[in-house]
């Protein structure tokens, strides 16, 4: 609430109060046992945007405190993973990369997938992990998962420059890659990725406040899900049956579209993207409703 409004209301109430005594009074806040399912206070969320900023600032600033290399460490993880994938899946298992240089192929998939996996993993412990703060002060709880997704985005963008550097290098030295107009869809793909990570994360976070069973599922579930997504293999090497099954994985469309846009190899379909969009909207919408429901009294059971 901004200050001007509050000052006004207190001034205005004093003369009006005697007349107001028995009439329906105006209350700024009414706390009741259960809110309506769709009673989500987006205005309040907006009022707390500075808190979102501070949380993102905290996440970014504190990760590499007391290190000498600092944010350079953000690069190390995707580079090491790419090298290992090149060796294990490229050299040993000899899985096709659709004629694309292995470094680019793996790096693009890893960077995208990492963003989803990290958003999902980190937001899925929102309630349990922040019970200490949530138990002492009120603010819209959704700020926390939003800030995690936002700080993840910054990390993703830093890692994405690594991919772009490799991309520019190969573009100039080889003719193995063929970027095209689908490249422009990248921001949209990132948005969907963020939405999916957030949506799944807050659903799991809400489901684990009382019964913790699902937390065990999350840990290896995300790892397994990576193999159901074309990260280490292209869609094109799959048989028609496997393809039909994988079509239902919304992230597969995002990864393939991005690979096609930048590298010129991959499955792109408007239907697939439309499905991924619909899927994201549903997951995110359901997530927000469940989260909103849970945040009212999760402190009693967490």
């Amino acid at each position, binding site marked *: 609430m901004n200050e001007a409004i509050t000052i006004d209301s207190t001034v205005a109430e004093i003369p009006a109060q005697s007349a107001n005594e028995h009439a329906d009074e105006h209350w700024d806040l009414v*706390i009741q046992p259960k809110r309506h399912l769709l009673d989500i206070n987006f205005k309040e969320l907006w009022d707390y945007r500075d*808190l979102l900023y501070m949380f993102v600032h905290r996440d970014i600033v504190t990760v590499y405190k007391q290190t000498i290399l600092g944010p350079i460490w953000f690069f190390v993880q995707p580079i090491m993973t790419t090298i290992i994938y090149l060796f294990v899946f490229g050299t040993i298992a000899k899985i096709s990369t659709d004629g694309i240089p292995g470094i680019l192929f793996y790096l693009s998939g890893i960077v995208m997938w990492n963003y989803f996996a990290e958003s999902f993993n980190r937001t899925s412990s929102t309630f349990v992990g922040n019970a200490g703060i949530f*138990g*002492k002060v009120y603010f819209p709880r959704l700020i926390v998962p939003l800030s995690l997704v936002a700080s993840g985005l910054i990390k993703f963008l830093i890692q994405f420059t690594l991919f772009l550097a490799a991309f520019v290098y190969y573009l100039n030295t080889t003719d193995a890659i063929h970027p095209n107009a689908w490249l422009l869809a990248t921001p949209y793909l990132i948005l969907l990725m963020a939405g999916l990570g957030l949506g799944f994360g807050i659903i799991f976070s809400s489901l684990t406040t009382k019964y913790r069973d699902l937390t065990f599922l999350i840990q290896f579930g995300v790892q397994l899900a990576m193999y159901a997504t074309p990260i280490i293999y292209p869609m094109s090497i799959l048989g028609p049956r496997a393809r039909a099954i994988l079509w239902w994985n919304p992230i597969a469309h995002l990864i393939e579209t991005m690979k096609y846009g930048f590298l010129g190899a991959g499955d792109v379909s408007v239907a697939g993207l439309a499905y991924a969009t619909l899927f994201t909207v549903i997951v995110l919408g359901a997530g927000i409703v469940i989260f909103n429901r849970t945040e009212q009294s999760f402190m009693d059971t967490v």
Partner: protein
Amino acid sequence: MSVAIKLENISKQYRLGQVGTGTISHDLNRWWHRVRGKEDPYSQVGQINRRDQAAESEYVWALKDINLEVEQGEVLGIIGANGAGKSTLLKLISRITSPTTGAIKAKGRIASLLEVGTGMHPEMTARENIYLNGSILGMRRHEISRKLDEIIDFAGCQMYLDTPIKRFSSGMRVRLGFAVAAFLDPEILIVDEVLAVGDAEFQKRAIGKMQEVSQGGGRTVLFVSHNMASIRQLCPQCCWIHNGQLIDQGDTEETLANYIQSTLRLPTGANVPSTASRSGTGRLRIRRIRFENADGDTLTTVQNGTDVTIAMDCEAAADEHFTSVVASLALLDDHDNYIWLVRSSFTREYFSFTGSTTIRCHIHDLNVAQGTYRGVTFLSERDNEILDNVRNAFTLTVVSGDFFGTGDQGLPTRCKTLTRSTWTHS
């Protein structure tokens, strides 16, 4: 005055025991009732919140049917024993969790200080943490920037502004946290015993700030504390919660007197609590302490300005003979300062007896101000052997008698001893 917060039939039910496989049947049953549009089957059960009784039901009402109105600009103290439901009430008002039944209505921004420095990150500097903590408490960034100098000044940490707060002492962290909170501008401020930490100078400043906020700014303050002195100092009005129910509400002195009376409703004197820390050889132990008036009646509270006898039932470990026992009694205030100490050897009195006995100390014209005091007892055999030394032997509640003979009580919040004086002028 208009009402700033209104609580209507607020109740909060908690489940006893652990969450596990056993609880899912209740959850499923509750869900099944809800699906069919029926009432929660467990909302009718549950026992009253009395922590010293065995649990009969699986549910407990931490709060039951609380109705309360707080006027705008009022500073309301909330008192009650541990576990009475005070903090639960504050949690409901500050939206940490929602009530089981009832509604809470409020006008204006609510800020709660259930803890100071919530969410501060040890790796971040004092300056960054001021912003972080301020934002968590609901301040806007430009608001904090505007007040930054005042906050730093209040915390008194100019030198360490760019040092991570993990290098701070815990007291300094509290100061920083409170400084941020002190410059919040809410219409309604909720404070839970956060003043218990920090040094004396800081506590004084913190209380001063709260008074300033409530008196100057017309803010509504809800304040929970066990420190009777700070409740007296800050809150003209006070409410008392007992076993999850609102027992009494009104003038602070009256409410406090009722509260203190009830905590000492002990017809035959108080056993020395088994948890009291004691030392000494233990050949002779103090088991029970009673307060008696001049007629020998047992009292629950004593009046200042009257003669009071403190009787100590001493139990010998074996049926042996003690030749010259010295007994001591001391009264301490809330802050563990000695009010006075009496010792039988001061007046050259030594006790000689065999086996158990009762030692009585007759205090003439009790000269301590109204309030609650902690008692320390000490028994020794001359100066050679400490028999029994009990740190929390008893609690003595002194209510106002008529010490000065004029009805004046003195200034009990400032000074704990009363002294009669005569005055002349020339």
